């Protein structure tokens, strides 16, 4: 009983971790290559989900929805890059924070105008309906398994691109030393547009995949953004490998903490006190984890080479 429950929660943790990785990957690359802090990255995740709502309404087919929403997320990401973000690459971090904060205010409210404030949803694909039975009368949804698999495939693909292709080599070089890369004749701005569009698409993909599980509502990207920040700070800014491991770690710690912290406290506290303390401690757990990592390694677990 407890072992099955534990297994289910581990799966839930992996699922959160995979979603976080998809968002954090773009964030960490954009920061690594261009030293640009993009708070609006969480909004890309939200837009992915909202675009999926619309495209699902039009097509009624989940897979067509994924393709269309990804294309639209890419276009929107590039539009934002051209209209706003590229004017702030040379500014200090504070200006970037404020400008991208402005983008968040605009898009969160814009979504509320276009799609309304109430939560929306759309179903996952037919083929992935149903559940895998894990114990009597309780099954784990196939869609969630599929989400974990899709996320892992994305992570593997991303690793291949970054570690094994020429573009990946340029991205790594850009993260290590953009000035030198530029001096060697590479158009860093163009490279950055590629990275940026790609990151926007990954975050959008995470949003599309999350839509059938979580409710689609304005501001849904904000919480994910902050978790993604925790992930890339733990993993080391600019490092894909660090983002991947940290995302899984954060996903697991958060999910398992929320499910079991109260029970753990019940071992040595009054049940009523445990019910009070458990959830409070559980919600702090990943931040404590982050603080612990930073205390020993102020640049995260796997800092990108060349960056201190």
């Amino acid at each position, binding site marked *: 009983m407890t072992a099955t429950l534990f297994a289910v929660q581990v799966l839930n943790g992996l699922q959160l971790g995979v979603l976080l990785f998809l968002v954090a990957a773009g964030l960490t690359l954009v920061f690594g290559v261009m030293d640009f802090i993009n708070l609006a990255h969480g909004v890309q995740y939200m837009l992915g989900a909202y675009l999926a709502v619309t495209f699902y309404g039009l097509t009624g087919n989940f897979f067509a929805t994924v393709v269309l929403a990804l294309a639209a997320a890419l276009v929107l990401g590039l539009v934002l890059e051209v209209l*706003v973000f590229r004017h702030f690459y040379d500014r200090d971090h504070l200006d970037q*924070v*404020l400008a991208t904060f402005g*983008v968040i205010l605009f898009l969160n409210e814009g979504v509320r105008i276009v799609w309304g404030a109430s939560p929306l949803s759309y179903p996952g694909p037919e083929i992935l309906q149903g559940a895998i039975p894990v114990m009597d009368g309780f099954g784990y949804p196939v869609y969630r398994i599929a989400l974990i698999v899709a996320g892992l495939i994305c992570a593997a693909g991303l690793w291949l691109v970054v570690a094994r292709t020429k573009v990946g080599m340029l991205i790594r070089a850009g993260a290590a030393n953009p000035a030198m890369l530029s001096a060697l004749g590479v158009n860093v701005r163009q490279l950055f547009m590629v990275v940026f569009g790609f990151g926007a698409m990954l975050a959008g993909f995470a949003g599309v995949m999350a839509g059938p599980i979580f409710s689609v509502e304005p501001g849904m990207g904000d919480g994910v953004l902050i978790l993604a920040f925790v992930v890339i700070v733990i993993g080391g800014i600019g490092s894909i490998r660090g983002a991947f491991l940290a995302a899984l770690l954060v996903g697991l710690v958060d999910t398992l903490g929320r499910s079991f912290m109260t029970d753990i406290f019940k071992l040595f506290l009054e049940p009523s006190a445990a019910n009070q303390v458990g959830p*409070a401690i559980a919600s702090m757990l990943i931040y404590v984890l982050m603080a612990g990592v930073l205390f020993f390694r102020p640049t995260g677990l796997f800092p990108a080479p060349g960056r201190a």
Partner: protein
Amino acid sequence: MRDLLTRERLITAALLTVFALLPPVAEAFGQGYLTNVASRVMIYAIAALSLDLILGYGAMVSFGHAAFIGIGAYAVGISAEHNLWEGTLTIPMAMAAAGLFALATGAISLRTRGVYFIMITLAFGQMAYYTASSLSAYGGDDGLTIWGRSEVLGNPVLEDDTALYFFVLICLALCWWVASRVVGSRFGRVIAGVRENRARMSAVGFDAYRHQLVAYVLAGMMAGLAGALLANHAEFVSPAYMSWQRSGDLIIMVVLGGMGSLYGAVLGAVAYLALEDVLAGFTEHWRVIFGPLLILIVLYARGGLARAFRREGPSREGRDG
């Protein structure tokens, strides 16, 4: 320099005089509600002042400043829930609680620089937010209604809105005075020196980390005071006080007013809340207008409102960097 100082004193005195005269004037014109609105503005001015101390003078971009406000507010709210109404106890408690949180989180955050610092303060702010949300004994997500205001030595004088207004004004003036003393002191010079060149300050023999930590705790305590006042003003506390958007709002106030200028922070708070009020009267979706406006302000109007009062405005460009 001497000219600048007197100019600053003039503007400070003018602003405080306007605040002091506002209640009777508003009353005379039958706009008594303005007193209430202005109380809130002054409370946020205190918070903006505290943020300006570390952001403007110390270049520490804290994105979790609203947490200190929330902790101060909750200290008052939770005390009231346990029937402790004495403001001379609860307000220092609020400041101490916020200061302790600043000490613990600052000790970790200040080990990091730049963008790490931004993200970590943001994360700690969220930690406080989620912790408050899970305090089910004190209202959880829904917040906590406080059935009255703090007493002063057993006297419920603050129940009167005008009395509260002047109490807030006195707090603002005190914070302003403390902040200006700090900025002008040797300590303040060290903080500004670390902002300009950390390595050089360390080489000269100053412990940058300790100075920054003390400034961080001081700012946290001041924001805690703002929180305690806010709880009294609204007679309500909720986790929303600590949301990261609130922290963003505070940064906007400081930048809008002009970083590294104390009256700028106060002007920024006034301007931001007025702008919010005007835009919100225009449409409920005011953020759709404010978002792009913010981008334009950051793009074209660096230096903020304070620059308009400075003679040698543009030459100070490098300071914000």
